[in-house]
Structures are given as C-alpha cells and as structure tokens.
C-alpha cells in the first residue's frame, strides 16, 4: 500500500532537511511543473479528482480555475495554506507540518505556479510551535536553494513565501475570516460573492487550501492523475489521513486509501474499544460532523459515502463515544466550544448557541424540562444552513441534531431522573 504523504515521516525522527528531502525525490515535481504550462498543472490536478481536505471537500482544481489568468489578471495574486487546525478532535495537519515541511512548501510552490500566484502565506495556529520552527527553517533552505524568491530555478516564475502565526481563534480557519485575520483585522467572515479566488487578500485573487490538500499536489504532478486515482478505494482520488481519538485501544493517525471503511479504521488500526468499554457512536470528521452509529460502520470514509450516511467526512479524524461517557455531556462540551468560538456576527449563532449551551448544562445539572427537547430541535433548525453568515453554526448543529436522534433515551433519562445518570449524583 502506498503512503505518499507520510513516506518521509518516521515516528520520533526529525523531518528530512533539504538534502534528504531532495534525495527522496523532493522538488522533482517543481522542476517538472515549471516545464509545464500553468493550466496544464491545474488540468492534471483536475483529472486526479483531488478534493479539499480542509473539511468541505471542494474539488481543488475547480477552485483554482476561478482565478483570473493571463496578462490582464490583477497582481499580486496570493496562495494561502490553511494550517489553522483548531477543529476539536483534529490532529492531522500537525503531522504533515512537523513531519515533512518541505513537502508542504513544494506543494505550495507547485500550486502557486498553477494559478501564477506571486506571494504565499502559511497561516499557522500559534499552538504548533515545533511546526513553526521547522517551517521557518525549511523556508530558509528553500530560498537559499532557489526554490523560492525571484526566478525560481532560472525560470520566469517568482514566488515569495511567508509564515504567519495566528493569535488564535477557531474562526480564523474559515477562509474569508482568515483573510481578515491576515490583514490585521478581527476574524469575521466576508460576504460571498465576491469569492476569494477573484477578490481575496487585499482585494486580489487568492486561493486558500488546506495543508493536506497542498501536500498531495507534488505527488499528482510526479506520478500522474491515474496513479492518484488508483490510490483510492472510491471515485475521489488519493489517500487520506484518518485519525481516531477516544476510548479505543490504540488512538492514532494513519494514511490509508481514501474510502477505507469506518470499521477498518476503528477496529483494525485503532484496535477497537478498550476493554470494558462499548462503542456507542462517533463523529467521523471533527466536532462539526453528525454522529454515526453501530449499524453504519461499514460505510466508506469518503466524501460522498459519508454524506449518503447522513454525516460528513469533515477532517477524517474521528471522535469515539463510549458507553461510560454521557452523550449529553459530550454535546454540552461541543456546544460550549461552538458558543465560545462564535464570532458574534449573526444572531442565530451567537445567541442561539449560548441558549443551546445553557439548556444542555441545565440537563446535566438536573434541571432538564420536557420542553427542552423541542427547544433544542428548534435551534437545530435555526442554526442550519441558510440562516447564518458562515458554516460555524451549521457545523454546530450537526452533532446536536444527530445526537438528539440517536441518543434520545439518554436525553429523556436526564429529564426524567433530574440528574445526569453518568455522574452518579
């Protein structure tokens, strides 16, 4: 089984420096890309069916194709790597950032070339200190070797690349809020249209892609679209970093074919539940995805299959709920997070989420009312798509609506017994 994204990453070892990265075939894709027309690079990425790994699964080449090209295109154009990774339960980009920084940098240069970007930023969350250090070092190495800067490898193409370390807020990961954060403003999202590809950072054409998305690009350019599609078990191309946290025997992160089943990831790679714990459900791709439960374990972890199962692939890092953990308490924890991180721009989100948080807290404390369930259901509706400016609120509604659906008995018990049955009060 091929694992292109993690082949240079050895547990406990420092990442490859430039000479080692080159020896392993690094920067060959960049040389190859520079001999291609920019549109040809986009074409091979399109052919590969690469879809964004940041959560929404938008086809990468399609995103790039909205960027104005040619002599009349506005400049500077920007490319941004979204390395904010603050989705609870998500720890995949960190591995790529710490484990093989040159892979990301090469991915950014090749992608930047495809849209003819002039300046790139890596938008990194502050908590990833080691990643910051390693990226700084790798960027400096790449400049010294002529992979960055003016006239890359003697070509006509030039790119400046900078690291921006965020001052922290979940909202910064939303791509238009991220643009505001980079401009030194509050990270509220922007109205779309105009889309960032046309009018983004400082009003110039900008693409924002996730770390894992960009890391795939050099391999696609090197080995071709057919190879990439073959890595996957389904129609979306490539491998995927899948993770598991919670009370399983071996929590961790693995690069596997896109479309590996939930069961294989949970039972084979994560070793199944710890002794004495039973499986109740899981959030397949971070905090803002719908629960899936025991009879859905044979679903493939890819974008379309997860959607058909009523959830989303999201970030592909699952959070497991066991039978000794209170589902209402878990939802309280999740909705507390969303309420805290709401940027305050729209009422259903900032006001609604604090209501939701209070209702769940009341239930946990033994003050649940029969009418609470209806109130939670109405918030699910109000938080849903179409009522708010960005996807934070709909994301917050996903675990809540599916939690109400699958763990209704647990909600009822809280209300009936006037206590949390898990806390032994």
């Amino acid at each position, binding site marked *: 089984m091929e694992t292109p994204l993690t082949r240079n990453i050895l547990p406990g070892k420092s990442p490859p420096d430039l000479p080692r990265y080159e020896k392993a075939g690094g920067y060959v894709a960049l040389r190859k890309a520079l001999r291609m027309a920019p549109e040809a690079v986009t074409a091979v990425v399109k052919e590969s069916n690469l879809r964004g790994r940041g959560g929404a699964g938008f086809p990468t080449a399609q995103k790039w194709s909205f960027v104005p090209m040619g002599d009349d295109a506005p400049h500077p154009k920007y490319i941004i790597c979204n390395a904010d*990774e*603050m*989705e*609870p*339960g*998500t*720890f995949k*980009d*960190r591995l790529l950032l710490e484990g093989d920084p040159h892979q990301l940098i090469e991915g950014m240069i090749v992608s930047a070339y495809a849209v003819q970007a002039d300046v790139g930023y890596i938008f990194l*969350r*502050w*908590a*990833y*200190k080691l990643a910051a250090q390693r990226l700084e070092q790798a960027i400096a190495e790449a400049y010294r070797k002529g992979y960055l800067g003016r006239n890359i490898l003697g070509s006509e193409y030039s790119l400046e690349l*900078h690291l*921006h*370390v*965020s*001052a*922290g*807020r*979940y909202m910064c990961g939303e791509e238009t809020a991220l643009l505001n*954060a*980079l*401009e*030194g*403003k*509050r*990270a509220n999202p922007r109205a779309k249209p105009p889309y960032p590809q046309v009018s983004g950072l*400082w009003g110039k054409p900008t693409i924002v892609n996730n770390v894992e998305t960009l890391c795939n690009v050099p391999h696609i350019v090197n080995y071709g679209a057919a190879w990439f599609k073959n890595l996957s078990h389904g129609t979306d191309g490539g491998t995927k970093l899948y*993770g*598991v*946290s*919670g*009370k399983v025997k071996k*929590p*961790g*992160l693995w690069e596997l074919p896109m479309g590996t089943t939930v069961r294989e990831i949970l039972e084979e790679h994560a070793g199944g539940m710890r002794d004495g714990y039973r499986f109740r459900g899981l*959030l397949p791709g971070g*905090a803002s995805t719908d629960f899936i439960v025991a009879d859905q374990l044979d679903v493939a972890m890819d974008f379309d299959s997860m959607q058909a199962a009523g959830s989303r692939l999201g970030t592909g*890092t699952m*959070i*497991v*709920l*066991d039978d000794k*953990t209170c589902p209402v*308490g*878990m939802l309280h*924890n*999740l909705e*507390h*997070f969303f309420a*805290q*991180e709401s940027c305050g721009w729209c009422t259903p989100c900032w006001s609604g989420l604090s209501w939701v948080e209070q209702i769940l807290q009341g239930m946990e404390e033994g003050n649940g009312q029969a009418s609470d369930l209806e109130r939670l259901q109405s918030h699910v509706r109000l938080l849903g798509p179409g009522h708010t400016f960005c996807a934070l609120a709909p994301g917050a509604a996903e675990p809540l609506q599916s939690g109400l659906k699958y763990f209704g008995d647990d909600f009822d018990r809280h209300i009936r017994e006037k206590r949390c049955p898990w806390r032994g009060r």
Partner: protein
Amino acid sequence: MLSEQERSEIQAESQHYPNNRALCIEALKIVQQHRGWVSDEGIADVAEALGMTCVELESVATFYNMIFRKPVGKHVILLCDSVSCWIMGYERLREHLGVRLGIGLGETSADGCFTLLPNVCLGACDHAPAMMIGGNHYQDLDPARIDEILAKYQKEEREEEREPADGNTTDA
C-alpha cells in the same frame, strides 16, 4: 514607548506584509512576548507605532485568544477542554490542578507563578488529555504526571531564586 528590541523585531516582520495594518497582530504578539501581557500602555505604544487608533487596535486585540489583555503568571497553563480531552479525563485534571495550585480557571496562583486557562483542542487528541505550558506540549496526562510537571517548574523557580537574575536562565 516601544523598546528598541520591540521596534526592531516589528521592523523585521514588516517585510512580510504590504502595510502596517497587517502587521498589528504580529506587533501585539511581540509586545506580549517581552512584557508578558498587553496593557493599555502596550496598546497605545503599538497603535502609535503603526499609525492606528487605540480603539481600532483594541478591537483586534480583544478578538484573539492568545493576546492577553490582563496580567498573567510567569507560566501560563493551557489545559485543553475540547471534546477528546473531555472524554479522556479533562474534568479530573482541572480539579487536580485547581487543588494543587489553589486556583480555578482564569486565575493566577498566589505566588504569581502559574495562570490556569482552558484552551481549545491542542491537536494532540490521540494523546488526550493534553495541555501546554509556555511553548511546551504535555500529553497523555493524569494527576501523577501533572504533579511531576508542576514539580519541575517549581524546582526551576527555586533555583532561579537562589541565583538572582543575571538573565542567563534557560527555558526547559
């Protein structure tokens, strides 16, 4: 006023951004790095240096979690309170830290040594529960491990007291 050091660090960062406004978060971080937190004076200093109003800068400073607008202890403990850590025992750790340090979330210990803050997911969910102190990540935590880590910081603290500040202390 900004110190020479602060000024030159901000200057170095300015090469990465096309205008002063974009530099403001970076500048706030630099001031915080040197002064421990961002006071009203810190806001005024940065605003003046970048040609922004204090109100404008304040609205940015208060938005971001890692800009501290209140004084903090020497070491800030960021305890992850997100979902995977919650499942793996966050509440027990919070109580344990509270007892050991005599403080609740958002508070600073009487000796000024530690501030305890809750924090969103630290990206260590497969090694939950997790926390950070300064730039260091600590994971797979339980109360015993917390005691070891606190003891290490407290020992350093005592050693520093014995050799009064000549600025040569190193971070662990």
